[in-house]
Each structure stands twice: as structure tokens, then as C-alpha cells.
């Protein structure tokens, strides 16, 4: 695929992982989209930050816990996950409450690097302005 056909895709995840299906079906788009060799980023804002919390347990609600699938993203070269700082703070969360998601950098002898980056609302604004396609879930 030539460079001209590579676009910057940003998936905006705005909703809690359970309660509605948006988060799960958004992740399905990301996983399918990974096969298209585009420049992919994910952003987590509002209740969307709960999607990345460590230790999710859905036993009590009879719904599948799909959070382990986030750990596979690194293997699909999806390794830019931006979490909005203000959204975390408004919910009493910190980076230490989130899953440790990593990817292996083949240019550096497959060193494990973190996929999650905490960004401010202003930084996210710039990031969004830089995209070709934004899909909002």
C-alpha cells in the first residue's frame, strides 16, 4: 500500500465498557481496521476511561468481560492509546488504576513499551485536529 493511501484514524471511546454495547463494538472495529495498515490511534474520554481499568469483573451482570482483548492490540500494531487526564481525575482514577498495555518495538530488539499515554484535554484537541478520520463511539 502506498503512503498516500495511509490515513490517520482516531477511534474516540467515550462510553463505559458495560451498560451499552458501544465500547465492545468499537473494539471490534479497531481489530478489523488493524488489517488495513492505517495509522491508528485510540482516545479514551469521559466514561470511556473505565474501559481500560484493571481488574474488570462482570460475573454479577452476566455479560462477557471483553477487557482482555485490549491486551491483544499491541500485537496488531495498535499501540497509541491516549487517555484524557481530566476524565480520569473527574472519576477519581489515576494511571495506576489502568491495565498495563504494552507493545513490542521491532526496531529496538522487541523491547516492550507502554501503549497508554495520559494526555491533557488540550493535547487531545491538537491530536484530534491532526486526524483524517475520527470514529466516535
Amino acid at each position, binding site marked *: 500500500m502506498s503512503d498516500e493511501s495511509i490515513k490517520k484514524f482516531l477511534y474516540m471511546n467515550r462510553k463505559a465498557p458495560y451498560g451499552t454495547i458501544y465500547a465492545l463494538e468499537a473494539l471490534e472495529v479497531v481489530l*478489523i481496521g488493524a488489517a488495513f495498515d492505517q495509522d491508528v490511534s485510540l482516545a479514551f474520554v469521559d466514561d470511556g476511561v473505565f474501559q481500560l481499568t484493571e481488574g474488570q469483573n462482570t460475573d454479577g451482570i452476566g455479560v462477557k468481560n471483553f477487557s482482555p482483548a485490549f491486551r491483544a492490540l499491541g500485537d496488531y500494531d495498535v499501540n497509541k492509546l491516549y487517555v484524557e487526564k481530566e476524565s480520569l481525575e473527574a472519576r477519581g482514577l489515576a494511571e495506576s488504576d489502568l491495565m498495563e498495555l504494552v507493545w513490542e518495538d521491532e526496531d529496538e530488539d522487541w523491547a516492550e513499551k507502554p501503549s497508554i499515554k495520559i494526555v491533557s484535554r488540550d493535547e487531545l484537541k491538537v491530536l484530534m485536529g491532526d486526524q*483524517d478520520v475520527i470514529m466516535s463511539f
Partner: protein
Amino acid sequence: MKIGVVINEGPYTHQASDSAYQFTKAALAKGHEITRVFFYHDGVNNGTRLTVPPQDDRNIQKNWTALQKEHGLDLVLCIAAAQRRGILDASEAKRQGKDADNVAEGFRISGLGQLIEAGIQSDRLVTFGD
């Protein structure tokens, strides 16, 4: 301009499909190209031929089918979202061993790759939903 349209909510409960329909019609009237209309989440429910709204109300599915016929639109229902929600075409119904199918004329069922492709091939991807 090449425009892709995404509809994420079902008919009647939510205005997304109505707004997308009006938008698509207006864009076509202005000479824009609609690369694809992709129905995702509950949006796939716009593609069932079994809705029977009151006669004094709009028929959202028939509106889309008519617009498709007039302009040759590509109306795509996401297969994964459709299967969850009981929207099947004839071949899928057969494959799944179901005794009925309900995809309306003018719609087709296909994969999520069609959504990504619409993003790649369009100048703008416009989403309707919450």
C-alpha cells in the same frame, strides 16, 4: 466531495437515521458523491423489511430503499452487528439454519472492513448517532 455516512442508531427511537437520510439527500442534491452508507450498532435495524409504522408517519426503511434506487447508493449493514440483532439476508439465514430473512430491498450485509474502507476512500466520514 466524497462523503461516507455512518448510522449508529435504530429507527424511530432515535433521530440519527432521519437526520442521515435528510443529510444524504441534501448532499446528493448539491452534487456530492456518497461513497457508502454504513449501518452499525442498532443502526442495522434500519434495514429490516418488516417494520410497519403508522400510515401517517414516515417509513424510514422505505425512504432509504427509495433513495438507494434513485441514486444507486451502497447501503451496508454490518454483519456482526446484524447477526446479534436478528437481521439476516437469505444466504445468511440459510447458513445459520434460520427459517426467515428480513433484509429490505436496496440494503446489503457485509463486514466492518466496509466501514474502514469508507473512511479511507471518502473525503469526509459523517457519523449520526449518540
